[in-house]
């Protein structure tokens, strides 16, 4: 299976990188930019998994490793079975 997982900072957790990016964009002349939040994503390939297990397994990856629940949320999607 091919899957993509997004991991992003929770609301309210300050995002130094995002802040820096948005002010950099503004100084580069893109005044329209009002806010930037930066996150990570993972493109994952696995051996085939039974349909009903796929998403659960991806969430497992996040809980066990990919996301830190104290500061991050995540979203999983199966791209191709």
């Amino acid at each position: 299976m091919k899957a993509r997982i997004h991991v992003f900072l929770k609301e309210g957790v300050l995002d130094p990188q995002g802040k820096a990016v948005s002010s950099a964009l503004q100084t580069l002349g893109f005044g329209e930019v009002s806010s930037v939040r930066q996150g990570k994503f993972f493109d994952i390939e696995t051996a085939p998994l039974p349909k009903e297990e796929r998403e659960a397994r991806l969430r497992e990856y996040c809980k066990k490793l990919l996301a830190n629940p104290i500061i991050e949320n995540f979203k999983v999607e199966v791209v191709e079975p």
Partner: protein
Amino acid sequence: MRLSVIEFPGSNCDHDAYEWPLRVFGRAPQRVWYTDRDLRKADLVIIPGGFSYGDYLRCGAMAARSPVMEEVVAHAKRGGYVLGICNGFQILCEAGLLPGALLRNRTLTFLCQEVILRCETADAPFTASLKKGDLLRMPIAHGDGNYYCDEKTLRRLLDDSRVAFRYVSPDGRVDDGWNFNGSMDAIAGIVSGNRRVLGMMPHPERASEALLGSTDGAAILRGAASTIEARKKVQHG
């Protein structure tokens, strides 16, 4: 007192942590490899600094999930003593032994420089040989030392005076200009609920020798040692 220093792939202050007790009171720790499940009867487990797993994904994330950490968590739950320095602090947070997380420095760069720490509580094994308000000089060396936790957690840390050290100015004031990495409330180190687990970003093991510019770091190890020895005496009558 028995000490163990945990070694992860990518630890690079393991050597310094190993020599630290040797230098401070001539006692050699045990080395424990990350796949090991035996802490060698350690009273005090030191999780050294460095770049375990290259700091890839999140600092300390992968190390926190390695076999040896299950033993360290069990050790702490049994009331054992644990000290996490720099990457070690990040690992303790990732492993859930200490609350909060360490975000990217607000400068978005690695920062290595001497900082001034103020002891915020003498009521913990690692600060037992200090007085509240004492100032210590030692280096920081990290890219992700910007302490963060949610409001509720912060209040709990403050109410239980679990903040061990803050970054301060040379005259001992909390001052944003001296909180280089931008840590919440200038927090440089915190202790666990039972006060026996300390995580701190600065490097006391690099500040325990006059030749290197400061001996202030030795106090932290001495404090832990005296507390642990005293406790053992009580136990063994």
